[in-house]
């Protein structure tokens, strides 16, 4: 638990640091959404959640099969 708290604290500190640095550098956005504060942080979080949820849904929709699915070949 102590290790987990340490990792979460370090992650939060690093994320905060990047937001501060981002606010201090001249804007460099090719597209409007990239100018939003902490855009990549949010995109990373939501993107990760999307990948997990979509993949799991795909798995439950029939992609995942028992290990013996291919018989002796498996």
């Amino acid at each position, binding site marked *: 638990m102590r290790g987990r708290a340490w990792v979460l604290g370090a992650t939060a500190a690093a994320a905060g640091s990047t937001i501060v*640095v981002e606010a201090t550098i001249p804007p460099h956005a090719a597209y409007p959404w990239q100018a939003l504060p902490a855009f*990549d942080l949010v995109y990373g979080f939501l*993107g990760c*959640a999307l990948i997990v949820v979509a993949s799991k849904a795909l*798995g439950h929709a029939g992609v995942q099969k028992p290990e013996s699915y291919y018989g002796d070949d498996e």
Partner: protein
Amino acid sequence: MTVHPALPLLLAAALQGVVRGRRRGPVALAGAFGALAAVAGLPGGAELHVSLLGSELRLVQADALARVFALVFAAVACLATLYALHVRSASEHAATLLYAGSSLGVVLAGDWLTLLLFWELMAVSSGVVVWHGSHRRTRAAGFRYVYVHLGSGALVLAGVLLLHAAGTSGLEAVPEGTARWLLLAGVAVNAAVPPMHAWLTDSYPEASVTGSVFLSAFTTKTAVYVMIRAFPGLELLVWAGVAMALYGVVYAVLENDIRRLLAYHIVSQVGYMVAGVGMGTALSLDGSAAHAFCHVLYKALLFMGAGAVLAATGRRKLTELGGIAPRMKVVVLLYMVGALSISGMPLFSGFVSKSMVVSAAAEGGRPVVEMLLLLASIGTFLHTGLKLPYFTFFGASGAVEVRPVPRNMLAAMGLGAALCTALGLAPGWLYARLPFGAAYEPYTVDHVVSALQLLLGTGVAFALLLPKLAGQTTVSVDTDWLYRRPLHRALALAVATAERGGATLERAGRTLLGGLAPLADNPHRVLERLARVFAGGGRAELRDAPYDPDRYRPPVGVTVLWVTAALGVTALLLG
């Protein structure tokens, strides 16, 4: 004098049949380092030609693109051979050396015919590498691998023949036409473009611990090399690449086998390279070449890490692993260098190459492509940098026995990790060797901040979704289902039908022969009886007449007369 860099590898492969036991590894390693020295010594623009059956083969045409691929191929051959130094099998060493040598032959070839020869040699030798796995699935997976690559080789052969018929032999952008589509289809199979990718995720995890390191390096990257040569700027490839990048990460979520998870990430990472080829700008093409260079090294390192786990524990599934980090600290550390490299962490190699392709998409006014490639990058960190190491090394501790990992395996991993870090710290060395001359600076503040935020956001989501990401004892149905289920069953049905038909024909033949056999007992008798029937003797007489063998036997005197006459005639003729 130009020495073909494949030559030391081929010689070392041949020597495997001569040297015995512990000497095989060092001989193989000498061959790999010989190849690296030969590549390093290739002068810019070096050429090597030979004549074969009336055709001029350009075995070496060392321009910048060929040299950068040849350099990383030779380097990874050294790393992988060092990793396999303890292997005693002559055939496995010979196959891996032949595979590495033929891959060098492909990227150094100066014409399509030479490329094709090495391409086919690569397919056969890599199939033999797969067969050296010890898992019970290896044999069948190896056959599927070979069948798919024979098919892709046939497509490339057809394309090359059409190009030759049109008078084109040099390796340049292929003009519109049938040859282009045939070549593209054949090369796309080797690049593992979905839906033609399943050979990779099916076979690589079944190879030996050491063989899978070689497999991770060559086949898909030779295909990327050919794509850069033949199809730069083909728009179709942009979307094929994006689809690959996402396909691999989606399937990796569902994967329980650690080497299959890494194999899905080969599909994903090669997607960046294919997309870069499709964009066709100097930055994107250099990005594809640079990412291939970095990918070969960090993916080999990741497969070495997974192989070390397999060698130490005998286990390959997330559900069977966990809690082994305290007993495999060095492996964890070196694996994480590969994981951070593939994830695009600043200061590691993937960051300096992957960001080139993503930046090329941004500069090319392709926001959707850019965002989707970033999404795939999130998935890469999720699986390779978080899920796999967490559930393999740090997850719930089971009763997993951990044996020592051979030192040569750790040394190879150490060298691979050093190269991944060096490329991340000093990307200028790699950029100076890229063929299209794009100017690119990866370490701008916004690039670094963007990359770190992306990784941190992914890390937070991973921590929250951890229970959903644990391995499950399932297999994922992929496109290989088509030839492992319906096609397999159709073939089995065809074979069973043919067997039943053959048995029926055999029975009919026996019945017929059984009916005819009495007739063959004594043809004289049959003819006589037939004559009687036709002369009106009647069927009853034919059936009931007692058998008299003397009736059909000529007298001895007649036989003597015929023999005497024959001898007399012969004597007259010869006299």
